[in-house]
């Protein structure tokens, strides 16, 4: 697998401890965490749900636009966590660990233990 590519199907039994918000029920596989390394295409810090769009390869090396969600987070709650409209810059490299969409669509949810976003130098965001 190429460096920075999709890291498939890391099983985290503890992920089941994550208490899902009603808005996420069934949309993401909370028993799995995948890792994406890619470049930021867009950071839409707007309601109802801010979304990070990441250009990253899938497990076959095909580049896709991935939608990165932050649970049921909206601007007020993410702002309280330290996110802002300028948290991500287009073109910067980030690593995302999140629960994959159950439909197989290119989307992951950053919510709960084991998930998160880090910058190229290893600093976590926010």
């Amino acid at each position, binding site marked *: 697998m190429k460096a920075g590519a999709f890291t498939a199907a890391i099983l985290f039994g503890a992920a089941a401890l994550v208490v899902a918000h*009603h808005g996420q029920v069934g949309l993401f596989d909370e028993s799995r965490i995948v890792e994406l390394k890619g470049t930021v295409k867009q950071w839409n810090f707007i*309601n*109802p*749900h801010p*979304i990070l769009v990441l250009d990253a390869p899938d497990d076959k090396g095909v580049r896709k636009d991935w939608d990165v969600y932050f649970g049921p987070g909206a601007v007020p709650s993410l702002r309280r966590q330290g996110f802002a409209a300028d948290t991500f810059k287009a073109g910067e490299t980030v690593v995302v660990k999140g629960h994959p*969409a159950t439909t197989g669509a290119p989307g992951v949810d950053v919510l709960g233990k084991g998930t998160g976003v880090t910058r190229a130098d290893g600093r976590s965001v926010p």
Partner: protein
Amino acid sequence: MRDPFLMRRADGVQRQDFVRTEPGARSERHSRGILRDRLTAIDYTSLVDDDASGESMSLMKPLSQTLALVVALATVGLAVVFTQSPSPAVPAGVPNISGTFAGRRCVPANSDVCPEMNAQGAERLMTARGKALIAAFDEHAAPKYDCSPAGLPIIFGDPWAVRIEQLKDRVNFTYEKDDVVRTVWLEGNGHQRPRSGLLFMHGYSTGRYEGNQLVVETTRFTFDPEGFAGDVINAPSSTQKRLVERYSRSGNALRLELTAEDPVFLLGPITYTIDYPETKEPLSLPWSCDPASAQRNLHVVKTKYPQDPPINRRNDK
């Protein structure tokens, strides 16, 4: 042209730009005008004495209208200048439930109806016709992807803040979520009910004080495919939905004891209790839901009806 500040509807909702003041926050001019109550500064000064106006637009006589407009504009100016001023004092002799409250805690902790009905709750509580609608409903048809605001009681279970202002003849609820403002019309103040057949997304609410509680009764809801649960569960509510909310203080928290009934879709009344801790943080407004962003969530949701043509949504800007 009518002065928008003098326009009023029985549900207190108006779709006009307005200036709002937020204690501890800068004043903001809203351009979207979605589901906003009319200018609260006018509430404070009681400029318009036509509380029995119903849904009709009330126009004052030219001279008094001009005077009212001048005073209203002056009041707006003062409101903008004194953006740090606190909320109006709670009327004497009533329990104080005013304040800003953030987050929610179900009492007891989460059940299958609180903070929102889940799949088990829907299976246990919904009528056969309710379950049939749930089975047929496609998430892609949900109004929220067009930024339709959360309804009641769903918004009570959302984790966002609410501000309550008690005025002499009404109580205003401003929800951070979806820019929703509700007016509860206090009984005994001559407020005329909306004419028969008028229905509202957030219903028509009247209220009264009983002991240490504000009791709010809401009826006249529109049909809502997500009236009791949204987000994939999609439990509907009907025009027969009726909510009774009882608000009181519980330490530093606001307590809501809710009873919801809907003979069309619920087998019987459901009740639950939520505590909302008080906060000193101002509301984060405006919410300004972006339809394109809302619809982007559908990227990870499968439609139940892939044989249908794709939905090309129209997004008004």
